[in-house]
């Protein structure tokens, strides 16, 4: 068993209206000093069996094409083995 976590974030240069909305709300709730908020997506994927190099490679391809829109987003993929 392994858990794969993929964090997908808008590229820094791309407008993030959601992050902006959260930043505004934080301010209105009295939490000051926030200079930036970005909102991303997180996918937690539970996988059976071992994550071989080949499967890891496959996961990277899938993350880059399916989970993230490479035109506007970047991603980070972390494999947490053996739980």
């Amino acid at each position: 068993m392994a858990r794969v976590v993929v964090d997908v974030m808008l590229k820094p240069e791309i407008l993030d209206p959601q992050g902006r909305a959260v930043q505004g709300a934080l301010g209105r709730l009295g939490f000051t000093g926030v200079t930036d908020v970005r909102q991303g997506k997180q996918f937690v994927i539970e996988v059976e069996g071992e994550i071989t190099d080949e499967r890891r490679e496959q996961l990277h391809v899938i993350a880059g094409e399916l989970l993230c829109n490479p035109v506007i987003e970047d991603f980070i993929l972390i494999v947490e083995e053996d739980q």
Partner: protein
Amino acid sequence: MRIGVVTFPGSLDDRDAARAVRLAGGEAVALWHGDADLKKVDAVILPGGFSYGDYLRCGAISRFAPVMAEVVAAANGGLPVLGICNGFQILCESHLLPGALTRNEHMHFICRDQKLRIEDNTSAWTNSYDAGQEIVVPLKNGEGCFVADTAVLDELEGESRVIARYLDVNPNGSLRDIAGIRNKRGNVVGLMPHPEHAVEELTGPTIDGLGFFTSVLNSMVNS
């Protein structure tokens, strides 16, 4: 009868709600999200739309608007409050109603003429319908799937607090086909479909929605 319609940044159906109030014979009063002032209205409608862009979560940011503190206090004191679509989401986020509205099961925004059954006609907003009456009103949402844990669902059903259920098609995956609920007292109602879009032959699929607005006028006359 003065019925307030709150405009949040991103409210869209506020004009429609005000029109429905007028067609039902009430006076619509515009309320502003940023003012902690209900202008002495006799009831409040939280209209549909995408308040704050529905960013973060639908209704999550609006819940903290100055006007909402007043709405919550007044609702707890018995003021009739109707939340339609985004308004329903705001009521849940404000904990005036239980449960939550999540992404439609099929993940698309859906706009359709929806058949409903009015399950409970004791609330401030449904008393002009017959219990069991079937109506058709527009439905349009991306996050209208009502969820709550089993205990809450059982309690809602046990206390006849499900006010309307989807018929024929469950358009968003709502648990137990729930389209709308009320609080215990019956003054606060949340409804996913849009009765304010079914108040004129010309523009709606029916005029079945008018009953929500005449109900609150009735209930005020009777109280």
